[in-house]
Every structure is written in C-alpha cells, then in structure tokens.
C-alpha cells in the first residue's frame, strides 16, 4: 500500500510540474518579439518592407491576444505553446523584414546615385551646348534665360544630393528624375533655339 501511495503521489507531482511548465506567461519571448519589431521599425522597414512589417505587427498582436486569453484562465489550464510559437515567428519575421529593408534601401540608394550621375551628365551636356551656342543679339537673351533654367536644375540636384546624404533615398530619387527630365528639356530648347536662329 505504501508503495502504491508513493507512486500515486509521484505521478500527481509530475503531472502538476508538467502543467506548470506550460502555465507561465512567456514574458521574455514577448519582450524579445516587441524588441524585434522596434528594431525593424528603426531599420525603416515600414518604408522599405511595409507589407512584411504590417504582417509581423499583426502577428505580434495575435500573440499578445493569445497570451492575454491564457492569462485569464485558471493557472493549471493555461497553455502558452501556441503563443510561444507565434512569438518566435514574429522575431524571425521581424529579422527578415530588417534584411528586406536593408536590401531594398541599398537598392534605392544605388538607383538614386546612378540617377544623380545621369542627371548631372544631362546638366553638363546642356551647359556645354549653351556655352557653345553662338553669342549675338539674337541669342543673348535666350542664353541668359536658359542659364537661369539650368541654375534651377543645378539647385534641384544639389537638394537631391543632400537628401541622399541624409538617407532619404526615395525622396532623392523622385527629385532627381524630375530634375533630369528638365535638364534634357533645356538641352532640347537650346537646340530648337539654335535651329530657329539658323545656327546649329
């Protein structure tokens, strides 16, 4: 009888211990998942990996709701396994979002810098065309006006360069695209002005 009572006691103890293992709130996992999301936000994942970032944010909220729901149960019946699994997915997903954001940011940076090189080339080409334009009464005022146009393009490109230095790659890319097309249109205008004046 004593041996039977001992066995029953041991089984009861082990069962309770087992239940206890699943019944503690995953505070560390929650903190780690939230930190991972904050890190992704700091890496500008909301700008450069917006869908991934939103998915992980929603998954974190699901996990928090699951934890909250388990917390409201009687301790012996709490089971945080599903919440733990979701929190692990959030950490992993947020880390992937950081990588995606960094890759995308690098891609946009390279595009912006390449676009800047091309825009500066277009500006220099227009400037050269203007410098080589024949000077005379018929072109003097046109040249002065076109110089003013190129000055505006130069100013826009400088602003875009500063945006790149500040890490605002998407904004820079937009500015460069429009400045480049204006530089090209000025060069066209120079050619048209020269052909109108009978010189090319």
């Amino acid at each position, binding site marked *: 009888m004593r041996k039977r009572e001992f066995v029953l006691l041991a089984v009861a103890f082990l069962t309770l211990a087992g239940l206890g293992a699943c019944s503690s709130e995953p505070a560390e996992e929650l903190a780690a998942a939230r930190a991972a999301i904050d890190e992704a936000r700091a890496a500008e994942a909301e700008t450069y990996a917006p869908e991934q970032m939103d998915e992980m944010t929603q998954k974190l909220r699901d996990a928090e*709701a699951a934890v909250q729901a388990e917390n409201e149960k009687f301790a012996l019946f709490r089971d945080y396994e599903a919440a733990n699994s979701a929190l692990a997915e959030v950490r992993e997903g947020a880390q992937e979002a950081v990588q995606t954001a960094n890759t995308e940011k690098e891609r946009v940076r390279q595009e912006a810098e390449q676009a800047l090189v091309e825009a500066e080339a277009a500006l220099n080409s227009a400037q050269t065309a203007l410098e080589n334009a024949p000077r005379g009464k*018929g072109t003097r005022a046109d040249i002065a006006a076109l110089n003013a146009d190129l000055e505006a393009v130069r100013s826009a490109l400088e602003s875009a360069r500063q945006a790149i230095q500040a890490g605002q790659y998407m904004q820079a890319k937009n500015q460069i695209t429009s400045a480049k097309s204006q530089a090209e249109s000025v060069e066209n205008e120079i050619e048209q002005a020269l052909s109108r004046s009978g010189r090319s």
Partner: protein
Amino acid sequence: MPLNKVGGGQHKWMGGLGLLLLLILLPGCREIPTSDWERVQAVRKELLRNRADQLFTEEFSRFEERNEVLRRSLYQAAAKSFLFRTGITELRVALNAQWRSGDALLEVVRRTKQQLEAELSGEVAVIEGLLEARGMGILDQGYRRNRKEVQIRLAEVRHFIEIGDFDAAARLIDELASRSSEIRRDLEEMENRYSDPELLRYWSSLRRKAYEYSIERPALLIDKYHRTVYLLEGGAVRSRFAADLGWNGWSDKIREGDGATPEGEYRIRKQKGPEDTDYFRALLLDYPNEADRYQFARAVREGRIDSRSRIGGMIELHGEGGRGRNWTDGCIALSSRDMAGLYDLAYVGMPVVIVGKCELE
C-alpha cells in the same frame, strides 16, 4: 412486455436522440468564426493599400481600435474548450459589422482618391498655365529660374499623384503655392501696367495720332501687349504682322541693356539693306526722342537707375523674327518674309507709334 419496461425503453431512446441532436447542433454555435475574421483582415489590407490611414486617419484609427477588441474576443473564445464557449454568435455578428464598416470606408476612400487626383491634377494645370504666362515667353532671368524650379517640383507632384501618395502631393502643392504666388505677383505687376487707366488714355491718344499720320502717307502702329505691328494707310489698317519684342518687352525702355521696347512716337531714320544688318533688313528708329531723354534724366535724378547708365539706342524694326516670344534687346523683330513686304513700303521719316496696348478703330 411489462408496461414499465416498455415506457423505460422509450425514454432512453428519446434521451439518446436528444443528445445526438445536441452534439450535431452545438459545433455550429461554438466554432471560432475564423473565416469572418480573415474577411475583416482582407478589407483592412485593402484599406492600407489605398492609403486609408493617410486619407481618413480618424476613421481608420477607429476601425483599428474595433479590430483589436474583436481580436481579443476571438482569442478569448478560442482559449476556452469547445463545450464552454459562449458569445460566438454575437462575435460573428460583430465581425460582420466590422467588415461592412471597413468595406464602406474603402468605398469612400476610393471615391475620395479619384476626387483628390482630379483636384490635384487641376491645381497642377493651373500652376502650369500660370507659368506659361499667356505665351509671352518671358525671358527675365529671375522669373525663369522661379518658373523652372516650380516645373521641377510639379513633376514630383505628378509622380506622387500617379502612385497614389496624395498626402505627399498635397504637401508639395502647398509648398508650391507660395512660389506660384510669387510668380503670379510678378505677372500681375506686369499685367497691372496694361490696365492702368492713365496709361491706357495716353496710348489711346498715341493711337489716334498714328491713324491721323496715315491719312497722308503710310504709318506704323505697334501694339506691345498684342505683339502686333499694324501698317496703317488712309486712316485704316492695311496689314498686320506678328512681332517679337525685347526680352523685357513688358516694360517701357528707360536705359541701355534693360531689354525693354520703347513706347512713344518715333520716325524711321534709316533703312538698312541686307549688307548693313545681320537681321535680313532693318528700319532704324530715332530712339531716344526728347520724351525718352526726359524720362531717362528723371529716372537718374530719382535714383531709379544708376547715374552711370546710358540711355541706349539702335532700336530697329528688323527681320529674323517670328519666333513667337520676346528675345531681342528692345528691337521689334518680324519674320523675314513680313519684313520683306514692310521694307518696300517703308520710307525715311515714316511715323512709327509704339503703344503698350490699344483697341483698333
């Protein structure tokens, strides 16, 4: 079979049937409405894709708040064992209401996007129209630089409209509003000169003189605002020619280098054939006249121009024009074809009356 045994058998059979029915019906009332929740999440994604968080910030925040409440209710229900779940029907109703609310907001967002796109595109068109400056082709450098900067930013606005970032487009339009106000002010200052009653009366009197001169011999009347040269003969218009003026042609000429075309009464002083000009043919005017000298002296006295300035000269009607914009240093340029016809009818001493603006008789 004893009655009690028969009665006891029926009760057991009915009890079993009732339990079976209960087990069949219960799942429907206690199943977690996952598909309803996924439908709400789908409409949320669509709202984000259409930038509802930017366009309708408050409404979208409220939608998100209700979402969080529903999420917690959903997980609370899921945490309970099947037999103890309650409130599932109410949760399903709430999820459907949330989906309908999101769907209605999505419809409003889409309509608003279309309206915004039209409004912002309209504002872009207004600013672009302003920059065109009624085809005057203004070459003033300050104006040109302003205009080009605005054109560059307008291209960015168009890009933001295309990608649906109306918030960014609207902010940039607001920034441009002050720049385009400067341009509008510059243009209004130029325009105001041409609606000044005193000037209009003066120009009208000059116009009448031109017609009087033309009764005996042909005369020229030049309307700067309409950029037109009229050949008058016998008190009527015989021909008209499109003209290009000085790059600062809006203004009345005061000094050398100001790019303005003078206003007043002049005479042709010399006719220049192709060997004497680079501009096909030319008719040299007797600018500056006495009125111009008086105006120049007063401007120097009043400090409006530098005392070292010169009054200038060499104002001509000449060819190589017809460019559709003001580009000369103050001369009046016609197309070489028009100049050919005019040159043959011109003569030394021919009256040339230049006004800012006039209506023909």
